[in-house]
C-alpha cells in the first residue's frame, strides 16, 4: 500500500485537528489583540474545559448543563488568572510574563491532575458515533460539530471586534495604549475581558474535541504551543490568520504521518514554526503587529 491511497483520510483528520489548533490559536489572538501579551496558559483552558465537563457528566448532570457550567468555570479561571497573575505583572518585561504564564500553566495542569485524576478521559460524542461517508472519506459527526463551532466562533469574534464598540476598545488598548487611555478606555478592564473571552474559547475547544481525542491533565501545554504556532503561521494577531494557520498546521501534521515515522509527528509543528519565523515572520496573511513593532 502506498502512502498516497490514504491521503483523503489523512486530509479529513487533518482538517479536524486543524479546527482544534485554530480554536486554540483564536484564544491567543484574542488576548494579544487586547494587550500584546502571549498567554501560555491557553492550552490549559482547553484541557480544563474537557476535564471539567467529564467530571460533571460523571457527577450525573445532563450534557448541555455540564458543558455550560464548565465553560463558565473556565471563564472564571481565566478572570482569576488575569487578576492574580497578569495584573500585578503588567508593568514588567516580556520575560517575566512568559515565565509567570508558564508557571500558571504548570500549576493548572498539575492541580487538574490532582483534582480530576491523571487517567485519560473521553467524552461521549454529541450526536451518535455513526461515521458519515462524504466523497469516500469517513468523517465522524463530531468533526462536523468541531468545524461548525469553529466557524461560529470566528463569526462571533469578527462581530465582536469589528461591529461593537467594546471590541474596538479592546483592539485600541493594544495597538495604541496612550490613545486608548486618552479616550477613556480602561485598559485593565479590556485585558480582563479578553482573558475571559479567550478562556471561554479555550473551554469550548476542549469540550468539542474531547469526544474525538482523549483528554488528560497533561495535554494542555503541547496543544497550547501548537495553537500558538497556528496563529503565527497564519499571521499573528488576525482571527482569520489563526483559522487559516490552524487548518494548514493540522493538514501538514496529519499528512506528514504518511511519509515519516509517526513518533516524529510532534516535532513537525515546531519545524514549521522555525521555518515560518525564519522565512516569513508575518505569517501567511501578514500581521498587523509585526511590521509596526520591529520585533
Amino acid at each position, binding site marked *: 500500500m502506498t502512502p498516497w491511497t490514504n491521503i483523503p483520510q489523512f486530509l479529513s483528520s487533518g482538517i479536524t485537528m486543524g479546527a482544534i489548533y485554530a480554536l486554540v490559536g483564536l484564544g491567543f489572538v484574542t488576548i494579544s489583540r487586547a494587550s500584546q501579551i502571549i498567554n501560555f496558559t491557553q492550552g490549559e483552558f482547553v484541557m480544563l474545559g474537557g476535564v471539567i465537563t467529564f467530571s460533571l457528566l460523571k457527577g450525573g448532570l445532563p450534557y448541555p448543563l455540564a458543558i455550560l457550567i464548565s465553560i463558565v468555570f473556565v471563564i472564571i479561571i481565566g478572570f482569576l488568572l488575569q487578576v492574580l497573575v497578569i495584573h500585578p505583572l503588567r508593568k514588567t518585561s516580556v520575560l517575566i510574563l512568559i*515565565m509567570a504564564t508558564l508557571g500558571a500553566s504548570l500549576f493548572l495542569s498539575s492541580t487538574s491532575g490532582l483534582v480530576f485524576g491523571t487517567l485519560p478521559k473521553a467524552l461521549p460524542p454529541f450526536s451518535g458515533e455513526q461515521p458519515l461517508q462524504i466523497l469516500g472519506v469517513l468523517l465522524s459527526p463530531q468533526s462536523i460539530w468541531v468545524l461548525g463551532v469553529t466557524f461560529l466562533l470566528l463569526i462571533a469574534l469578527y462581530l465582536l471586534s469589528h461591529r461593537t464598540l467594546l471590541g474596538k476598545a479592546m483592539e485600541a488598548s493594544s495597538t495604541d495604549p496612550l490613545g486608548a487611555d486618552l479616550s477613556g478606555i480602561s485598559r485593565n478592564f479590556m485585558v480582563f475581558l479578553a482573558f475571559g473571552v479567550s478562556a471561554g474559547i479555550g473551554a469550548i475547544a476542549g469540550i468539542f474535541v474531547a469526544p474525538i481525542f482523549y483528554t488528560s491533565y497533561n495535554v494542555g501545554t503541547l496543544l497550547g504551543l501548537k495553537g500558538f504556532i497556528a496563529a503565527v503561521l497564519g499571521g499573528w494577531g488576525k482571527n482569520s490568520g489563526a483559522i487559516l494557520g490552524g487548518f494548514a498546521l493540522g493538514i501538514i501534521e496529519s499528512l506528514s504521518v504518511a511519509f515519516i515515522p509517526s*513518533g516524529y509527528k510532534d516535532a513537525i509543528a515546531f519545524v514549521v514554526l522555525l521555518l515560518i519565523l525564519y522565512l516569513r515572520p508575518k505569517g501567511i496573511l501578514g500581521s498587523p503587529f509585526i511590521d509596526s513593532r520591529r520585533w
Partner: protein
Amino acid sequence: MVEETKKEFRRRDLFYLWPMWLLSIILPDPLPHRKKEFKKRDLCYLAALLLFPLVWSDPHLHHLMVLAGINAILALGLSLFLGYAGQISLGHAAFFGIGAYSTAILTTRYAFPSFVAFGASAVAAAIMAYFIGKPILKLKGYFLAVATLGFGEIFLVIVREMRSLTNGVIGIFGIPWFTFAGFSFDTYLKQYYLIWGVLAGLLLFSKNLVRSKMGRAFLAVAASEDAAASIGICVAQIKLGVFVLGAAFSGFAGSLFASIMSTASPDAFGLNLSVLVVMMVILGGMGNLYGPIAGAIFLTWLTDMLGRFQEYSLPIYGVILILLLIFFPDGMGTRLGMRFVYLISYWPKKKRRDEGRL
C-alpha cells in the same frame, strides 16, 4: 495618572527585615557602583565553598550541592545570554541534554575517557547552538522565546525516536564516573569539589569576559540594538557568540550531569528544566554573575524540599514560581538590597519631609 512612588516605605518592608538581614550575608552586593575589582569577597566565598562540605558532612546535602553546582553552571551560561545580552532562551535544557547525551554515547559506546567526552560535549552543544542560533537569533521577545522552546521540543522528540543511538525514552545507563589521570570522582564529596571547581573556573572566565570588549558589547546589545549597531558592534555576531558560549557552558554541565547521575534519559531535559534555569537567572538578578549561582542554590534546595510533598509538589512549585516573579521581578538580591537601602534611608528622609525640606 498618579505617579507611582516606588521609593516610599511600605509596611510590608518591615516583614522583609529579618530575612533581608540573613540574605544580605549570603547574597552578593546588588549595587553595581560599589563593585570593587578585587575581591576580598571572592576569597570569602571560596573559603566557604571549600569548607562547606567538611563542616556539614551530610551526604544528601553534598549531593544537593553537586546538583546545585550543575544548575549553577547552566544558569551562568544562560545569564550571559539572558542577563547580559538581554535575549530570551527557553531551550537551554536542550543544550544540557546534548551535552549529557554526547558524554553518554561517547563513554558507553566508544569507551572514550570521560575528560575527552567532557570537552567533546561542550563542542557538540556549541556547534548545535551555532546552527540553531544563526537563523533564530534575529527574532526578539516572545517569538525568540517560543522559537527556542520549539527547538527544545524538537530535541526531545528526536531523542525519544532515535532509539538506535539514544535508547529512546528509557535512556542510557551505566555512564562511568568522571575520571581524570586515574583519579575517579566516585563519592559525593569528590564530585562536589569537581563541580564547584569547574564552576569557579567558568565563573572566572565569565568575569573576565564581561569586563572585556565583547562583554561590554553584550550590555550594549541588551540596552539598544540600534545604538549598538551604530557604534560599530556587529549585533548578530555578538548575539550568536553569546548564544554559543551559553550552549558550551550547558554542554559542560550536561556532561558532568551524565557522569554523576550515570544515566541520561529524555525526561530530565524538558521544558521544566529550561523554566527552572531561567528562574535561577531572574531570581539571581540580571547582569550579575554571582546572582545565578545564588539562584541555582536556592531553587535546587527549593525543588528538593518540595519533593517531600510528593504529588502536591508541582502545584506548590507553580504558585511559588508566580509569587517569586510578582515580588522579585528583578532578582531577590536586587530587590532586597534596594529595599534595605530605602529602609535605612527612610527615617531621616521622613524627618526632612515632615519639615518640608524634601
